[in-house]
């Protein structure tokens, strides 16, 4: 009895040793030190400017943001700049406008890319090749080379200086349709056949069978659309004119060009605010974020 317990604890420690590797298992000490030093160096380069921005936004007016006397950390951290950015700049309006475009874009992209992707994943209708060709063709033209004509269309529709005009040209992207199609193709046909036997109609199969099986791709589409709508700059710059309709990126860029009138800490605070929604999305859906990057291969 006692010997049995002894052996079991022995295997237990052995297993734990295998599960929890020691530093030695990661490589030679010198190599490890070099690796971590390099990692810290790159960390400083990549996140350094963003952290500096965050720290500067927390400084009080008595402290220099830059110049010879500026320190990295705020001596008396304060949220004054965050209050000020809402008081001095119509940031709340900017955020509302950006959110409006984001919600419209995500909604329309999801609805239309899933329905179109679903139908294109079906082999049994005539004309789907033509649809395919049109979608691929529409992806061949870089936005910058058709934006003049796009603006004229938006003008003819009376949507200049209108947030709907910012949203409209990208209400469903061909790339997202292709992404959803690929995801739906991966659903085994046998499952669909059995759903048919149970009398599920087209819409029911789409809604209860295909959509739940493709939720990974749906997340990727959501993330990509969210970020591109939230961060977009050139198109809103062309379409929007008045202060009350500006999106957040547009509003922030104007702070720069008139930066003499503004306190840098306030502009930094505005920048931090604009990063938060995307950062939150990133933290929640990290795994799918990376998935979205590797699916970038489909983009060509």
């Amino acid at each position, binding site marked *: 009895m006692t010997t049995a317990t002894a052996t079991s604890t022995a295997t237990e420690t052995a297993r734990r040793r295998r599960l929890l590797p020691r530093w030695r298992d990661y490589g030679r000490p010198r190599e490890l030190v070099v690796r971590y030093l390099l990692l810290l160096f790159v960390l400083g380069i990549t996140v350094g400017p963003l952290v500096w921005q965050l720290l500067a936004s927390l400084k009080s007016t008595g402290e220099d943001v830059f110049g010879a006397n500026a320190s990295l950390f705020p001596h008396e951290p304060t949220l004054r700049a965050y209050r000020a950015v809402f008081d001095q700049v119509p940031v709340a309006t900017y955020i509302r406008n950006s959110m409006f475009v984001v919600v419209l874009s995500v909604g329309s992209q999801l609805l239309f890319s899933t329905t179109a992707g679903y139908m294109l994943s079906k082999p049994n209708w005539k004309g789907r090749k033509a649809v395919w060709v049109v979608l691929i063709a*529409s992806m061949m033209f870089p936005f910058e080379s058709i*934006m003049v004509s796009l*603006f*004229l269309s938006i003008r003819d529709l009376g949507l200049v200086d209108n947030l709907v005009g910012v949203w409209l040209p990208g209400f469903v992207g061909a790339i997202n349709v292709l992404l959803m199609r690929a995801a739906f193709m991966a659903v085994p046909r046998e499952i669909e056949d059995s759903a048919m*036997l149970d009398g599920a109609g087209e819409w029911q199969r789409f809604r209860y069978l295909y959509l739940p099986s493709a939720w990974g791709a749906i997340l990727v589409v959501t993330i990509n659309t969210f970020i591109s709508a939230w961060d977009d700059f050139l198109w809103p*710059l062309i379409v929007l004119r008045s202060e009350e309709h500006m999106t957040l990126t547009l509003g922030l860029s104007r702070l*720069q060009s008139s930066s003499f009138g503004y306190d840098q800490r306030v502009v930094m605070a505005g920048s931090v605010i604009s990063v938060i929604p995307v950062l939150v999305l990133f933290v929640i859906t990290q795994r799918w974020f990376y998935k979205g990057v590797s699916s970038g291969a489909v983009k060509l």
Partner: protein
Amino acid sequence: MATQTAKPASAPGAEHTASVPGAAPSRIRRLGRAVLPGPAPGANGAALYRRWWLPWLWTAPAIVCAVVFGVFPFLNTLLLSFTDAKPLGGAASFVGLDNYTRMLDDSDFWLATRNSILYALIVVPLMVLLPLLLAILVEKNLPGIGFFRSAFYTPVLASSVVVGLSWQWLLADDGLINTWLEKAHLIRDAIPFLSDSWLILFSAMGLTLWKGLGWYMIFYLAALGNVPKELHEAASMDGAGAVRRFWHITVPGVRQAMMLVGTLTGIGSLRVFTELYMLGGPTGGPGGADRTLPFYIKDVGLDPITGNAGYGSAVSVALFLLTLGLTLLAQRLTREDES
């Protein structure tokens, strides 16, 4: 409705469903409404939906978007490039090839073209190589590596405008970098990162690289996963150093990914706008010296007062041809590389 769309009994699919034990007749009929009558898919091509318009209804929004905001604008751009249309409306007249002849004599156009091409020439090789090195650095599963990977990715999340604001204050005459260099007595006067046209261009390239690093790192990480570990082990047994293993095992292993990154970043460099707008200001550097082609298109084609949408369209066609040329070149290189 149900009887109208019921499946003909002769259809092979119907026999199949009828043979299923326990399937009520009503159910088969309901099934017939949903599914396709006629021969099963693959018999003689594809079976059709009874309601032929159904697939078109489902795909209509995507088709409309692709045609109205993709294909049509392109054809319209070609057409507009032969006119003198104004961005805010008014009568446009046909001007023949005037826009194109004007373009060939326009030194600002050539400057923008040079900037765009230079951007691609410098950014592409660096963007192909640096993220790969970074991916190798974070590939090994060390404690805390997940944190580093996520952290390296954060610049991707910030919009170009925010990143531009941050860099603007890093690079200002009394900004962080100049201050540090002065404190270290490496320079006496501030480096004019934001007022010299060449330095603005190079700073913008740095910004593009910095922002793309994390994105392509993740891209390469996926590719590195496919390089067999045994090759590295065998090579290091044979005494091959890290550098040799990099050139002889890693690079051939991720070659395809490198070609793809090269193509993507090449096309991306021709589209650069925001970085230069943020660092060079709304004019695009002193006297517009740092404008790229998209920047120039926006300035000459879409300015509400002085803009000429016709001329802007001609420059757009030039940008499209440049992009097309680059894509074809990349395709050819990829094909040669594979054979």
